[in-house]
Each structure stands twice: as structure tokens, then as C-alpha cells.
């Protein structure tokens, strides 16, 4: 097993999705991620300490005796990481944290702005402990600017970044948000990239780096052409539903079965001719009413109904295979179940086996890409709460077993959550 990033150690104070997604990308490449949680403030993705039964986050909806170890949301974001618990507001917790920083390369946090400073760990202080430390601070609105103390979740970032202003079935019906909170993975991936770029700089110069990662800036960076568009054409870009601005026809069509759909695009005249042949409407291909993209755009709604008539009695996978073999961009609208069962995703090992003591074997999202010479696979399951306390405190930091026992007695560390 060859791990590309095995010589990098990251102290990870990040929570929820954005930060943990970023450190997952690095953990999967072999970086040693030491995730720190406090017993009275678990990562919210571990769920409530005593949740109600029945949610999809727990195996068969059963929270069980240790629900914090059984939450699928948490468990799919923390494979390949080490997990410890440490109270950073306690003097002994601070001491251990200092020792850990001294032997680490990176600290990442997504607390509200100023929280880490108040705990006594400003960037200057961290640099005193480890002069070439890389620190990634990722508050919602960054560390400067009039909104710097505002707070936000991924759901709001997508709205503020302008994404939702272009979403929806039609302008008249108003915006619709996307099905996930895009701001989180966008920011998390930028954080992972920032860490590696900063480490490459440190390797050349020996210098420490502080990264100010505003989740808002990070999200707007994916909207660059739309910001230019407003300045170039003097109007805000708006939704066109499932249709395209210029080429036609394009749409999402009903298929055989309940709530089954297929997405088809015709981007050129030759694709149009191929489509008409493939669906048995060759006469349409010869009709001058549809001869080019702008004519098809003018008559798009009638074309959409015709195609929909053809798709609705057919299976979305069969349609895709038929149209793709005629060179037409087409894809089934995949549910989470479809993705799970799909031969293409399976051949790419999108899902990997994760054997976990409290959930048994599950298939969870694996590593997002393939490397030809270094390992990319799930090596171990997401840590149970405080699972690696002994390893990190004992073997890595070198604390005595008496000292560790005392940390647990004092409630500075442990494996059981405190409070409801």
C-alpha cells in the first residue's frame, strides 16, 4: 500500500459537512487526519445523543444504544480518519492540544469566527507552538469585511452566491433551491486544495501559511461567468427550466414507471437527425420547421411533447442506451437507489465496503477518483466517538497511561457523550 499523503498530519476541528468533506479527500489519499470532538459538543452529523427512531440515518432506522456511532451521515464522511475527544476549554485539554499541534502540519477549523481565538489559539499562538504550521480558517463570510461576524450554513451560501436566482421551473414560478447544500462540498474541496498548495509552499520556503477561506467567496467563485454576464448584457441571468439557452430540443421526459425520467439534449443539427431516426420520427428530421437550432428553439414545446410521448412507454435505461448509441447526449435521472445498483458506478467502485462494529457492513461512497500508483480506497471505518484516544494520546503524543486515565476521569476526554 502506497499512500500519496502519508507524511502529512492534519489536526481537524471542522464539523458538519464542508470541512469534513475536505479532510475526507485528504484522508482518502493517506493524510493522517486527527479529528477532535468535545464530549459535550459532538460533530452535529453524529446526530442527537438520544434521537427518535425512524430516520434514514441509522441502520434500519434504529438509533440503537450508541446512536452517535451509527449515523450514516457521519460515517460516510469520516472513513480513513482518526477520531479523538478533547475539551479545548480545559487547561489539560489545551496542553494536550499544544503537544499535538507541535507534531502536526496543518490545523483546519470551521468554527464561527473568533471561537478558536477565544480558546487561546490565535494564528500567532499556533505559530509559536509550530513555526511552520499551515492554518485553514473557514468562517462563513471570511475573517474580514462588514459581514465577517455573520453565520451561515451551506443552504444559505447557495442563495447568496447567486445559484438559486437561476434555479426554478420558470421565472414566473420563482426560484427553487438545489436538492443539496452545494456550498458545503464546494468549500470543503477548496479547503483541501488550499491545504496542499500551502504545504507545497511550505516545503519550498519553510514558511507558515494562514488561509482565510470565506465560504461565500468560495461559492461565488463557481459563478464567474454569470457575474461577467450581468456586466456584459446588463441583465441578470435567469432560469430556463430544463431547457437550454440556445440549443433545442432539450428536456427531462417521463418514462415507464412512477417518477422515472430521462434527460435528453440535442446540441446540433446532426444530433437532431439522429434523434428523429432513433425514435422513428424521420419525417420530422426533414421538416424545414425544425431545420436548425433557432427554429427548433421557436418550436421547442411541440417537440418536447412529441419526445415525451415516445419516452413515456419506455424504460429510462433502455432509452439512454438507444440514444447514446446514436450519439445523442442522454442520461437516466438517477435516484440514490439507481446509483447504488448501477453497473457503471459499480465498475468504478463508487461504493466501497465499510465494516463498522456498530453498524455492520455497509456500502458507503468510496474515494472520488482513481490514482494509478498510489492507494485510494476505504482503509478503515469512521471512528467511533473517541476511538483513537489511546493511540493518539499514547503512541503518538507519548502521554503515560496514568495521564490518559486522568484526562478521562476529569471529563477532558472519553468515549461517551456528555449531556443530552
Amino acid at each position: 500500500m502506497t499512500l500519496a499523503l502519508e507524511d502529512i498530519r492534519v489536526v481537524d476541528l471542522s464539523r458538519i459537512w464542508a470541512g469534513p468533506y475536505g479532510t475526507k479527500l485528504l484522508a482518502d489519499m493517506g493524510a493522517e487526519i486527527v479529528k477532535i470532538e468535545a464530549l459535550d459538543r459532538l460533530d452535529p452529523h453524529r446526530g442527537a445523543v438520544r434521537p427518535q427512531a425512524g430516520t434514514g440515518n441509522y441502520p434500519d432506522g434504529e438509533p440503537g444504544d450508541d446512536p452517535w456511532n451509527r449515523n450514516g451521515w457521519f460515517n460516510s464522511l469520516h472513513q480513513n480518519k482518526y477520531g479523538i475527544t478533547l475539551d479545548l476549554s480545559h487547561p489539560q485539554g489545551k496542553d494536550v492540544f499544544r503537544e499535538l499541534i507541535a507534531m502536526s502540519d496543518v490545523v483546519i477549523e470551521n468554527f464561527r469566527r473568533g471561537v478558536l481565538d477565544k480558546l487561546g489559539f490565535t494564528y500567532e499562538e499556533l505559530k509559536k507552538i509550530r513555526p511552520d504550521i499551515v492554518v485553514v480558517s473557514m468562517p462563513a463570510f471570511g475573517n474580514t469585511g462588514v459581514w465577517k461576524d455573520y453565520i451561515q450554513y451551506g443552504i444559505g451560501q447557495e442563495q447568496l452566491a447567486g445559484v438559486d436566482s437561476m434555479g426554478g421551473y420558470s421565472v414566473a414560478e420563482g426560484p427553487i433551491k438545489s436538492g443539496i447544500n452545494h456550498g458545503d462540498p464546494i468549500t470543503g474541496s477548496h479547503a483541501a486544495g488550499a491545504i496542499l498548495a500551502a504545504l507545497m509552499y511550505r516545503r519550498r520556503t519553510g514558511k507558515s501559511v494562514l488561509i482565510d477561506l470565506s465560504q461565500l467567496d468560495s461559492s461565488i467563485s463557481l459563478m464567474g461567468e454569470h457575474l461577467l454576464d450581468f456586466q456584459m448584457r446588463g441583465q441578470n441571468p435567469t432560469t430556463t427550466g430544463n431547457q437550454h439557452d440556445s440549443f433545442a430540443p432539450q428536456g427531462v421526459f417521463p418514462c415507464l414507471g412512477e417518477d422515472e425520467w430521462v434527460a435528453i439534449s440535442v446540441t446540433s443539427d446532426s444530433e437532431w437527425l439522429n434523434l428523429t431516426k432513433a425514435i422513428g420520427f424521420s419525417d420530422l428530421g426533414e421538416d424545414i420547421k425544425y431545420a436548425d437550432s433557432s427554429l427548433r428553439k421557436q418550436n421547442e414545446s411541440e417537440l418536447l411533447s412529441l419526445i415525451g410521448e415516445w419516452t413515456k412507454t419506455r424504460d429510462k435505461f433502455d432509452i439512454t442506451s438507444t440514444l447514446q448509441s446514436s450519439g445523442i447526449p442522454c442520461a437516466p435521472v438517477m435516484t440514490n437507489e439507481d446509483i447504488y445498483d448501477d453497473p457503471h458506478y459499480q465498475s468504478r467502485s463508487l461504493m466501497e465496503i465499510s465494516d463498522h462494529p456498530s453498524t455492520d457492513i455497509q456500502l458507503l461512497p468510496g474515494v472520488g477518483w482513481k490514482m494509478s500508483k498510489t492507494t485510494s480506497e476505504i482503509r478503515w471505518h469512521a471512528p467511533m466517538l473517541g476511538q483513537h484516544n489511546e493511540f493518539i494520546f499514547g503512541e503518538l503524543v507519548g502521554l503515560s497511561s496514568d495521564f490518559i486515565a486522568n484526562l478521562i476521569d476529569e471529563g477532558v476526554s472519553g468515549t461517551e457523550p456528555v449531556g443530552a
Partner: protein
Amino acid sequence: MSQNESTTQNSSVENLLTGISVIELGDEISAAYCTKMMAYLGAEVLKIEKPSIGDSARSVGPFPDDVADIEKSALFLYLNTGKKSITLNLESSSGRKIFESLVEQADLVVENLPPGKMESLGIDYKRLSSINPSIVVTSVSDFGQTGPYKNYKATPLQHYAFGGLMYITGLPEREPLQMKPRLPEYGVAQNAFVASLTALWYKDSTGIGQHVDISTAEYSASILENGLSMYSYTGNKLGRSGNKGYGRAAWGIYPCKDGFVGVIAGPEHRWSAMAELMEEPKLAEEKYTERSGRQIYAEEIEALMEPWLMSHNKQEIFEKAQELGLAFAFVATPEDILNWEHLDNRGYLPEISHPEAGSYKYAGAAFQAVGIEAEWQRAPILGEHNDEVLSPIIENLNMRVEDLKLEETI
């Protein structure tokens, strides 16, 4: 010389990726956003474009006043800041020779040609690594370099559909919906940046290069929140919930006086601030406080919020709520964003001028290394750096520029 006359990084400041040499064979977004970040961070990025037409992002637009011009496409101008452009016909043998000379000197190649195309051109990873054993080649594609659908064609609509994002966007009783911004392609470019730097880190440690295979489909499928783990754990399917996050009231998009606002009520201990903000004491009632109550009494809560929301503007609602510690947002337009004092304070919207396209405010850096001030450089004109980059190579290879132009290699 002003900073915008050249696309070369002439800053003397050592940046995070100074000294890294990158070749991009990119079309539109999924490779170009990855190398755009590298260029901003000080890497030298050589973009290889097809003679006379270039990257298809040059033809996509949007364009000033809707007049098409390959030097004025918003998509191209944004995605290619700080890069050098050379034109090269890789179908010709002299074009390939020149490309191979460039690869000898490079650290990284990022490409998003259709899978198999690099091989048919005779420049796949195997060949390139025989020229330069430490080269890293990152291949970005729609579906991946392997698997039964590797040759399928996709537009942004298919990216949303196949990756699972579309099915969960929209109203339950209507058809699933794409989003107009091309987030899956930007997202995979971001992860290609992480994967490429991972491979470069390993190369710097060991001298060993490698091939990275990354796809838009897998990126999209891996960000379905807990969708995939949920299916494994319980067999439950994700559905569409319109504008309501997690099916409860006061978490989603609501109309207000001048647009739409993101009401994001957050944890129970902050709920009392909702009543204060909306000047509606009834909202403070016990039964609405718990998250389960927000589900059961969603309609009552929404009726209580509506009068206040409809009599206030979006930015005002956002700022008032934030002052009370509530993580509200609003549905901002590009016009709104371009006028925010906050972004101005952060220097996030640099003005970049281009000799043909003109001067505009650009979206800035996704993250800032504090104290390391990078300069923004404009996107290149098609083939702008042919002389500078190619002349020494052509001379070295004993080729004649006139011949290459004649056979349309450059």
C-alpha cells in the same frame, strides 16, 4: 507595463504554487477551472488550444451585447485568467512532437478530452511517462476513463441527471430539475485540483509521476448529502422537497417584498429570535420551538411569518436576522453580488481589463493566503504566446515556423 497588459505572472512575490509548470488541454470548465486556480497561485499554465477556433468556451459566451467573438466570451475570460495560450494541432505529427517537448519540461498535464482521445493521438499517460517519468497526468471526463458508459456523451443536463442531483431538485409532483450554474463541472475541476496536487506532492517526495482518472459523474454522486449511505443503511430513497429543507417550516426560500429570502431558523435555542425579528409574539409559542413542531405546525408558522416578510426587503431581512444571530440568507442576483460592500472590503471583485473584451469586475479567489498578494492577470488572446513559448522549441526541433503554419500545426 500595467498589470493587465500581459497574462504572465510578473509579480516578484513567491506564491503557493510558484515554479510549477502545467499544461492544459482543456475544453470549457472541468479542466480549466482546476488550472485557473493554479495560475492564480503562481503556477505557469500553458493552455493548448485548437488553431483558429480554440477552446469551445470561446464560442459558448455569453458575449457583450450578444455579439459572438472568440475573445469576448464570459465563460472563457473567467476560466482562463493568468494562463498562456498557444495553438497546436495535435492531429499532426509535428504538433505532437512540439507537445512532447513541452511535456519534457512540465510537472503536470490536465486534460478533459473524450476518453480514448489521448491514446488515439498517441499522447496518453503511458507515452507521456516514457518521455517524462515524473509527469502527472490528470484526466477529467464526464463518466471516467473506464466502465460501460465511458464513451457516453453529456451536456450539463446529463451531468445533473446521471449524478443524482437532478432527481432531488424540484417539486415532488413535477419533473426533476437542473440548476443553470454548471456546478458538477466546476466541482469536479475543484477535486481535480486536489487530486493533481496530491500527485504532485507524491512526485516531489519520490520522483514518481502517475495518472489521475476523475469524473463529473462520480463527483456528483458523492455529494448527495447522506443519500448513498441512507440507501445502504435503510433502503430509503431520497426525494424532492421543493424549497423546504428537511420538510420543515422556516428552513428554505420564502418570498419577501423585493424578491426571495432564505429563512434558516437554526437550532431550538435561537428560535425566540424569530418572534423578535418578525415582530410576531405568537411565533415564540412553545409548540413551534422544537424542530418537530416546525414540521407539524408548518402552515401556521408560515402564515405568521408572511406579513413581516412581505413588508421587508431581502437584504434588510438578511442583515436584521444576522444581527439577531439567525443564519438567514437571500436569493442574490449577480447584480446584487457585484455591489456588496462586504466583498469590496475583502478585495474579492478585482477589476481586470482585456484589450479586446474590455474591463470588468471578476469573481476573485476562492481562498486567500494571508499576506501573499497575488496579481490577477487577464485571459489570453488565442495563440498569444505562440512566439514566446514555441519559437525556442521549434528551433530546437529544427522545424520552420512557415512550414508549421502552412500545415496548420500552429
